[in-house]
Every structure is written in structure tokens, then in C-alpha cells.
């Protein structure tokens, strides 16, 4: 009985891991989006949200993504609601891709992800630069998009491994 309870707790924690990761990445001081390096930065939240909305939409509730976006805006100092909007557009793109995909393919997912983050970052750039008068470095945005796209493949495999071997093995037992 105790064993079963323990297993249930572990299962709960592992299945909530994407959500925990999302909130940690949003609230933590150490941001991959701004590492202080000149030619390296990537948006971990975008990768996480896109992957889980595409492959396991039940792991990340849209309402949590919305709240994470609000938290992100408060921490980064951007107008409240902007990150939520970007995160949700990412979810729409992932949901659309999920609906039209018959045979999933990592390369195609990656390319679709690239198009989506290009669109999202353009929207972000326009909103921040022209509407809210924030100064953004165009070059940094390009670097960020490039590495977010490239690292999607790595994190996609890592998340797949995590879901199949860790969460899967606990569920199978």
C-alpha cells in the first residue's frame, strides 16, 4: 500500500515535470534567453512549450502557460500580457501542426517551429519597438532565434527520452 502511494507521488512529480520546468525557467534568475554571452542565447520556454503542446498537450495546460507568460512579463519588465500572447500563439501553431500531421517527423516539426518563432519574434519586435518604445537589438534576436531553432532538435530528443524512459517506465510498472 505504501509502495503504491510512493509510486503515485513519483508519477505525479514526473508528469508535472514540464510544468515545473516551465515555471522554473520563467522565475529563475539564470535565464538562457540572456546569458550575457555575445553570440549565444536561446529561448528555453519556447522549446518546452512547443514540444509539449505538440507531442503531449495534456502535460501543459493552456491556463498554466498563460500564467507563466504573465509571470515572465513581470520578471522581464515587459508589458503584461505580451509573453502570454507569444506563448499562446506558439500553442496555436503546435496544435495546428498536430491536427494536420499524420506521420510525425522531427525535421518537419523543427522547420515549422522555426517559422513559428520567426513570426513570434517579429511580432514581439514590432510590439516592443514600435508600440511600447523598448529598444531591442536586432542582431541578438537573430542569434536567439537561430540557437532556439538548433537546440530544438537536442531538447526534443531529451524530452522524448524523458517521457519514454522515465515517465513511461514508472507508468508501466
Amino acid at each position, binding site marked *: 500500500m505504501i509502495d503504491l502511494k510512493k509510486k503515485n507521488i513519483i508519477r505525479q512529480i514526473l508528469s508535472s515535470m514540464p510544468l515545473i520546468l516551465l*515555471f*522554473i525557467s520563467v*522565475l*529563475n*534568475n*539564470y*535565464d538562457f*534567453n*540572456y*546569458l*550575457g554571452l555575445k553570440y549565444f*542565447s536561446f529561448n528555453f520556454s519556447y522549446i518546452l512549450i512547443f514540444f509539449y503542446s505538440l507531442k503531449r*498537450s*495534456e*502535460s501543459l*495546460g*493552456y*491556463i498554466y*502557460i*498563460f500564467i507563466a*507568460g*504573465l*509571470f515572465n512579463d*513581470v*520578471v*522581464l*519588465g*515587459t*508589458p*503584461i*500580457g*505580451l509573453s*502570454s*500572447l507569444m506563448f*499562446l*500563439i506558439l*500553442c*496555436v*501553431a503546435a*496544435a*495546428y501542426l*498536430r*491536427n*494536420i500531421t499524420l506521420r510525425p517527423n522531427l525535421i518537419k516539426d523543427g522547420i515549422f517551429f522555426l517559422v513559428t518563432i520567426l513570426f513570434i519574434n517579429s511580432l514581439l519586435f514590432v510590439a*516592443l519597438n514600435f*508600440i*511600447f518604445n*523598448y*529598444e*531591442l*537589438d536586432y542582431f*541578438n534576436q537573430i542569434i536567439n532565434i537561430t540557437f532556439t531553432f538548433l537546440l530544438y532538435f537536442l531538447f526534443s530528443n531529451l524530452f522524448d527520452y524523458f517521457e519514454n524512459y522515465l515517465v513511461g517506465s514508472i507508468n508501466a510498472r
Partner: protein
Amino acid sequence: METSRDDFIIAIRSAFLKKGTQQRFSLLSLIFFSIIFLILGSLNFKVINYVKIGINEIVYRSSFIVSGPENFIIDNYLVVKNHLNLYKINEKNKSELENLKAKDLLNEYIILENKRLKNIIDDYVIKSDTIIAKVLSDKGSPFLKSIIINKGSKHGIDLGMVVMDKEYLVGNTVEVNYLSSRVLLLSDLNSKIPVIIEPNEIFSILSGTGKKNGVIQYSKKYEDIKDDSIIYTSGSGNLFKAGIPIGRMVFNLLSEEKKVEFFSDFSQLRFVSITSFIKDETK
């Protein structure tokens, strides 16, 4: 052709409106909420401002807790690094101390003389009570260079108060909540403060760059600025008291830009003091 268009519409409609097993809201309604937040937030709508203040209080505290393990690792790394450099630092400190002792005597006299002269020209300002605050979060946002401190309006913090790290200027308060505040750092792109560059008494504007350093802008005597010159607040515009040390000029042979290296390392701030300077009316 017709069928593929129908498929596209069905897929899009499903993406926007279909709720998954764990989803309580559709994407469309949440996107709608976000846009409402954005529009009302930019119009300074009261309810949104209250929501924002509530979220601020929650997020700042949670961010401090979530960053705990990471801060612990960084602090320990710095402690170990300091221990390894202890001998070298001690030798350097000894020689600096000798120099400073000599300068201190001279300084004391200059400070008293300065006070006396400022009293004569009716420009003497006094410090209000200093509030010491802990830095809760210093997330390196690409959009805003700021820190969050654990003191707010409850503790007497007001908008525009001067924030200092020891004797060095760090920035000023730009957002005050009940229990926390946001401090805009000098390195932020939007930070522009009047400064004086010594020697040569050059008045100018110090602007943040969004990186670790600042730059000198709008000076008529741009060419007269020398390497290693010290930057102080000029006191113009009554934003800051005159004479608060900020940083030193660092020249780069490869660029024409006049960079300023801040005395305080903004990434290592743990405690800051907040104060305001008011004119002495007691005379």
C-alpha cells in the same frame, strides 16, 4: 483545391477552439484575455494595475525562492574563488591602504571646506534616512536592466529614490509596490543621467547600453575626455545629489565610443541602500 482549404480551416478552427483533456480554457479565449491585458495595461487601467501589483508581489517572492539553489552555488563559487586569491588580494590591499590613509586626511579637510562653501551658496543637501534592502531578483532581462528589492511603500520607499551600493550609485526606483520595488540600473538602455567627468570638469549625459557598461553622450568637449577619468553625478536637473561616484572611463583602441566602467558590479548586488537627498532648510 476546395478540400485542402476546408482541411486548413478545420485544422485552424480545431487548434483555436478545441479543448484537450486537461484544458479548461480554449486557446482563443486565453489569447483574447492576453490582448485585453495588453491593451488595458497600456492604458493604465486601474484594475489591471492592481492585478499587476498582486502578481508582482507573488512573482518577486517566488523568484527569490526559485533562484535559491542557483544563488547558493554562485555564492559558494565566489567564496572559494576569493579564498584562492586571498594572498594576492591582501598584498594589494596593504599597499592601497597606505595610499588611502594619506588621502583620507586630505579628504576630510576638503569635505569640511566643501560643506562650508555649499552653505554659503545655499546648495547644501542632506541625506534622508537610509534604508537597507536585500536584492530579491536580478534577472538579466534583455529588455530591462533592473533589480527587485525587498522594501516597498510600507518601508517608506518612494519613486525616484537614489539606490547605492556602498558609496557608488546604482540607479533609482522606478516601480514601488507595497512590499517590494524595482530599481532601474544605470546600465539600462533607458537610463540617462547628467554627469560630470573629472578632471577637466566636463558636463555630459551618461547613458546605459543594456550591457555591463555605460557610454558618454552629448558632450561638447567629447575629445577632451581622458582615459581613466572619474564620472560623478553632476546634480543637474535635481535628479541626484552632485558628486556621487559612478565609474571610470575606459578607452577602447578599436572603437571611438567612450565607455564607462561602473564602480559597482551590478551582477553581484546582494544588499543596496536607498536614500533621497533633500535641501537643508535648517539654516
